[in-house]
């Protein structure tokens, strides 16, 4: 069983909803990025998504666009992100998912990417602009290296495509709660629960729900019908605000605990 599958199985045993966190690697720089990942792990994040910055992040809203720019300006690349994961792996308990656009992976080489991802101890990958039809080669290589490929599912995804994603994906499925780009919102989208119900009708794979989550009541709400909630832009916002503050990691830890606190009730 993969580290990701183990984590979800443990969550299901306790009945506690999980929390998946997203931050962009190298934002604001490599050293602070390593500290941030450790802080999120300490605070009890169940899975860490580590974003590989890309020059043209067309599925991301302004917050993560700016994070990508900061990370690129600090010299972050796919190779340096893998090195970062390697550095923090042994001090971090949570499984790590590499979150990326297709082009950096294709440029690095799919085979080299999978080999190196396995070496540094990453647990899975999610490629935003690589739909099921284009993901075959990557999936096979990840699977033979024991890593999970996580697929995104959206309110526009047909039942037939959910079925395909469920049979080709592993670890968990990532449900997008709303149409649009990434970004924190005040309220949870109404279509999210329906999407999760459609996924549940087809597969027993765990489901995490993201896009727009920023408050403990969102996490608690998602926890009632999905396995985990994903928080991204809200954390990245905080990194942008507190990048130069001595309290950066403390604030992030406090925020994650605040989100999780509600989920424990």
């Amino acid at each position, binding site marked *: 069983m993969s580290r990701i599958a183990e984590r979800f199985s443990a969550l299901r045993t306790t009945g506690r909803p999980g929390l998946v966190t997203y931050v962009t690697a190298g934002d604001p720089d490599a050293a602070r990025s390593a500290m941030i990942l450790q802080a999120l792990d300490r605070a009890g994040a169940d899975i860490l998504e580590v974003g590989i910055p890309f020059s043209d992040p067309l599925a991301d809203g302004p917050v993560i666009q700016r994070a990508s720019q900061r990370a690129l300006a600090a010299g972050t690349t796919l190779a340096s992100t893998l090195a970062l994961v390697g550095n923090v792996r042994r001090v971090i308990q949570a499984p790590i998912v590499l979150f990326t656009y297709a082009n950096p992976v294709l*440029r690095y080489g799919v085979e080299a990417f999978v080999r190196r991802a396995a070496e540094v101890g990453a647990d899975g990958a999610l490629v935003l*602009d690589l739909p099921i039809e284009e993901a075959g080669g990557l999936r096979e290589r990840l699977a033979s290296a024991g890593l999970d490929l996580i697929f995104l599912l959206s309110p526009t995804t047909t039942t037939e495509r959910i079925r395909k994603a469920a049979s080709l994906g592993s670890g968990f499925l990532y449900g997008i709660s709303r149409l649009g780009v990434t970004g924190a919102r005040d309220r949870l989208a109404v279509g999210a629960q329906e999407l999760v119900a459609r996924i549940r009708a087809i597969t027993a794979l765990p489901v995490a729900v993201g896009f727009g989550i920023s408050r403990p009541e969102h996490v608690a709400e998602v926890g009632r019908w999905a396995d985990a909630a994903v928080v991204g832009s809200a954390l990245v916002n905080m990194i942008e605000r507190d990048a130069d503050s001595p309290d950066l990691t403390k604030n992030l830890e406090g925020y994650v605990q605040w989100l999780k606190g509600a989920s424990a009730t």
Partner: protein
Amino acid sequence: MTETSATIGVAPAFGRRDPDARGYYGPYGGRFVPETLVAPIEELEREYFAARKDPEFQRALITLLTDYVGRPTPLHCAERLTAEAGGARIYLKREDLAHTGAHKINNALGQALLASRMGKHRVVAETGAGQHGVATATACAVFGLACEVFMGADDMERQALNVFRMELLGARVRRVEGGSRTLKDAINEAMRDWVTNVHDTYYLLGSVLGPHPYPLMVREFQSVIGREARAQFVKMTGTLPSVVVACVGGGSNAMGIFDAFIDDPEVKLVGVEAGGERIEAGHHAARFAGGSPGVLQGTRSFVLQDKDGNIEPTHSISAGLDYAAVGPEHAWLRETGRAEYAWASDRDALEAFGLLARLEGVLAALESAHAVAHACAIAPRLGREATILVNLSGRGDKDVQSIQRAMA
């Protein structure tokens, strides 16, 4: 010459050369989009495949192209330019004389007709030089569709006239400040809007780029250029041209004119990219000179990228050629040897612009001036017996201020 080119029939070529079922031309093309867009794009593909077979749709489109756009556009033998270049005879396919002043209207009307057929009420589009934005705003006015055009902040400055034209036509122009503030960033923002408003919004992409079926659909809507030009050329000269030359940004005017000559192996096809200031990262937009295969904005093709897979900044004096990727079918035509690709520098384009103005009385778009520059460069080598057909894809009113600045 007893007959004029206006007696030629007007009709795009549908369903002649489809990519494979996944939208690939050899190893190029495909559909690299976020999951939310997959179902809408599959719907678009189904609707387009149904529409292009429907005689009603074809009839409506041909009527628009004839009675509204003013097609066929003329073919013009450029006598004085030929004498100046000193070799092959140069002919100009005058897409600058199409309504709105560029070939872009052929595609904008085709897709707006499709959007209406699909029951969409809102259209978003990107624009670089503003020609596609103006064409889309025009088509939306014709069909009564709400229209928002994304445009890079830098492009809005260098193409201020077209911004005002779009607004006069009732479109809302949305300024894009992110990234390099040019066409690439306008496409990112248009796609972000589409993914957010996918239920009621149609994305009217302006070139042979993006996820399948856009490269196919845009080529087919533009194929009317090549169909007309081929018939006009044969009628005028009794034979086929030796070389067809067109500028290539995304590559829609080039695909449009190449299409009719693909099966004529004796006709050489040449695409001309923007060489900018020099072929060095950040100073040009010649993807085949400085790029490599990669995935950008939904399609796999030749892309200007750094060693880590990030997209490099580009430069061209012409906003319409200032883009980091090229249409996937062009990459395939190059790989199979059916077409070849050259580049012309900013300076070459400015010189050709001046020549064409003084010798032929035509103010060409700076984009098209790249094609004219290349035609003039190869004309002496080809010799007097040879002929060159240049696609003059647009008119240059929009560029007059940029040219004034460049000449100052």
